[in-house]
């Protein structure tokens, strides 16, 4: 009976992987050309394209650019499933003064850190990130 149940479980088992990308990853090289106090909003838009969002901050404004990568893993075991979803973003916020000159910008580039994993697996450890960061740097993106 136990063998039959195990066989049935094996027949019902399966797994699936999914990846979803929203927008192109943001290029670090483009960001490094921006200089607070000099770069204008028009120059930023010329390099990065249309922002995802523009927020009015009184007379100032802030532009958001982002890209999202989501990796999903599902293990099907008949009536019980195990699923993991991992999502990371490249995200940049640029702050402009009332004359549309760049004041400050902040960037988080981590779409390349997204991983396929099962729920009980530990990912996003510092050494893991370091290896992926180095690979992205090498690829020039």
């Amino acid at each position, binding site marked *: 009976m136990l063998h039959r149940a195990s066989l049935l479980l094996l027949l019902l088992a399966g797994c699936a992987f999914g990846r979803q990308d929203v927008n192109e990853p943001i290029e670090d090289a483009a960001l490094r050309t921006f200089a*607070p106090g000099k770069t204008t909003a028009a120059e930023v838009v010329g390099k990065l394209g249309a922002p995802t969002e523009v*927020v*009015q*901050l*009184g*007379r*100032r404004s*802030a532009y*958001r650019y982002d890209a999202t990568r989501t990796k999903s893993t599902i293990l099907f075991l008949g*009536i*019980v*499933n*195990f*699923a*993991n*979803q*991992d*999502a*990371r*973003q490249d*995200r*940049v*916020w640029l*702050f402009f003064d009332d004359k549309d000159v760049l*004041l*400050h*910008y*902040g*960037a*988080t580039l*981590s779409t390349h850190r997204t991983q396929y994993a099962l*729920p*009980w697996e530990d*990912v*996003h450890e510092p050494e893991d990130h370091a290896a992926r960061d180095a690979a992205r740097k090498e690829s020039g993106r």
Partner: protein
Amino acid sequence: MSRAARSLGAALLVATLPACITGSYERVRLQEPVRETDLAGLTPGQSALGECLQRLGAPWRVLEYDVDVDGNSGAALLWTWRDAAGWGLKAEYGDESVSGSVSYDAVAAEQPACMLWFDHHLVLQRWRLGTAGDLMPRRQRPAPFADDAGARP
């Protein structure tokens, strides 16, 4: 097994035959968390927006904050992330006349967040850790349009 237990088991089996019940263990990992060690290096009244962005990276959202009559404004920056796991249960039933489904998801709980408030000079006023729902201002209806003379239509 007693006769009553066998009857109950049989009744449950018959009742669930046309239904599909699935359990799932799900983990969701979203975005990079803000560490308290990064926040500890920030000084309200001193740290400028640029320094905060360098330490914490780009926020999830930026909001207008403390707007005065002259049009000057501060800013509120929100970071949010999640690493949560939990069990969920989904029951679906369907035949030609009746169909329906019920699901329970323990993962969709509160989302950790951190908010930083900046004054009109974009210098840090304060910061707070909490949940996104607590820290985000309540949604408001947009103000009605006013023309140059200040008259409302």
